[in-house]
């Protein structure tokens, strides 16, 4: 059985309105890094909220680590296991000192003080913000704030972290910092679900799921998904510029074994062709 399993789920925010999620099925394995793509209003964020029981399905079931999210007795345990990081870092920090902010989660879980200390230090080291532990959050850059928000989740020792457009408000450096942190989480065995509009981020995932109108449009590893340039464009999504260029060259008869997805792959490919 998959670590996260969404089966035939339908959901609408308002009984009279049409379904935001329309018979959706998702399976995510433990330790997997999955990117969720789709235009605004396609149901990505709603799908994310299902994963930690913020919303419950109208029909179908959501199982996280063998726990059914509709079972109210398990809600607390599910939320401890599935952390959520949102777009705006300023809305996610509550304390006036960074290490206190990170301690907020475990304190509320009733973790003993010595262990909280340990968890906070470890979480801050993981996101590379340990040296700022005594600082005030409002003086940090956007990327640093987001990393502190991630540390706050890590201190609860989740098995899965869901990121809902975590880099939308950040500058290029901040985006890179957050993406590096996400890759670190994956290396530590944490399951990652990343919702993003940046295709350059989605190509780093193990698997990409594209949603449209409340259903899964296509899924596969990044190369499989981003090779379908026409399909993505038709559903108002982009591909990385590296892929777009290769795709155009394919159109005039150039051949390649694998669709380039990032800067390095595209450079290597073109160097081979042009030199």
């Amino acid at each position, binding site marked *: 059985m998959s670590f996260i399993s969404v089966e035939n789920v339908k959901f609408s925010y308002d009984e009279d309105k049409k379904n935001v999620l329309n018979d959706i099925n998702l399976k995510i394995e433990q330790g997997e890094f999955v990117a969720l793509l*789709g*235009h*605004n*209003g396609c149901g990505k964020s709603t799908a994310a909220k299902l994963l930690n029981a913020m919303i419950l399905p109208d029909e179908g079931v959501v199982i996280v680590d063998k726990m059914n999210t509709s079972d109210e007795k398990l809600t607390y345990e599910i939320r401890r296991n599935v952390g959520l990081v949102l*777009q705006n870092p300023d809305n996610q920090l509550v304390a006036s000192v960074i290490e206190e902010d990170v301690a907020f989660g475990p304190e509320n879980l009733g973790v003993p003080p010595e262990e909280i200390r340990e968890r906070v230090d470890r979480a801050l080291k993981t996101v590379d913000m340990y040296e700022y532990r005594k600082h005030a959050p409002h003086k940090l*850059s*956007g*990327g640093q704030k987001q990393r502190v928000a991630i540390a706050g989740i890590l201190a609860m020792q989740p098995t899965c972290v869901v990121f809902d*457009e975590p880099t*939308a*408000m*950040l*500058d*290029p*450096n*901040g985006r890179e910092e957050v993406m590096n942190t996400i890759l670190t989480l994956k290396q530590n065995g944490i399951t990652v679900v990343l919702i993003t*509009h940046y*295709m*350059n981020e989605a190509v780093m995932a193990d698997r990409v799921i594209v949603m449209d109108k409340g259903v899964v449009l296509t899924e596969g590893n990044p190369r499989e998904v981003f090779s379908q340039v026409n399909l993505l464009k038709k559903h*108002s*999504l*982009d591909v*990385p*510029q*590296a892929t*777009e*260029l290769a795709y*155009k*060259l394919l159109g*005039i*008869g*150039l051949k390649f074994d694998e669709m380039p997805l990032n*800067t390095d792959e*595209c*450079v290597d490919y*073109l*160097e081979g*062709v*042009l*030199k």
Partner: protein
Amino acid sequence: MSIIEVKNLSFVYGIDTPFEKKAVEDVSLSVDEGEVIGLIGHTGSGKSTFVQMLNGLIKPTSGQVLLAGRDIWEKPKEIRNIRFKVGMVFQYPEYQLFDDTVYKDISFGPRNKGYSEKEIDEKVRNAARFVGLSERLLKESPFDLSGGEKRRAAIAGIIAMDPDVLVLDEPTAGLDPKGKNLLLAQIMQYHKQRKNTIFIVSHSMEDISRIADRVMVMNKGRLEMLDTPRNIFAQVEKIESMGLRVPQITKIMMTLKERGVNLPDGILTVEQAFFEVVNLLKKEGKI
């Protein structure tokens, strides 16, 4: 003719406190009527403080902003008029919608500017058309619109004041690729017809390279570079050292050039790159 002239502009936060911080330091530039200026820089580089001095929301600590040759702070009591001439669209402007219909919300600016009802009606409908909001939506509550529509309604509220200079602070943040491309195309369409001056702040180097005539690069409160996108993004190392990136396609083409492939500097779009690569292939008889 230059519409905006910025002379040695500086702003210091918290003067004479332990938190004193120079947000903008000695920035000078002159912007011609009808130019599109892209403004990039890392978080905290002073971009937002700078643009807020353009319409007098923040009063400079020293230096001047001249609008059509006159210091905007010449008569401090009339600073309000400057805000009709230099329209400012903040980040996430949809959070500033407030009235009970989209129409009323968009008409707030022109009404305060003192236009007649007939003029207001014309301005509101024109502005809505520019940003691609259908007539039908004007009667709706702004809070019933989708995220992209809300953003458009908020921008229309500024455009309806018919400003000579339009300042947009990250207008496409949080929009999906389609919404982003559509909004940029509409802004550029508006710019073509109205021929006004635009400042656009963005973290998307791809967007900036597509639409800006010139790019201002701010770093630690200073204006570090001011040039065409082509010349700016040709300086990969300098841009990266300031915590910024060049567009992916520019990086790919620059790296190839470094590895000895004969390509020009500062390729900014996929179309341009495609053109250059095809040219090379033809020259070498490979296609």
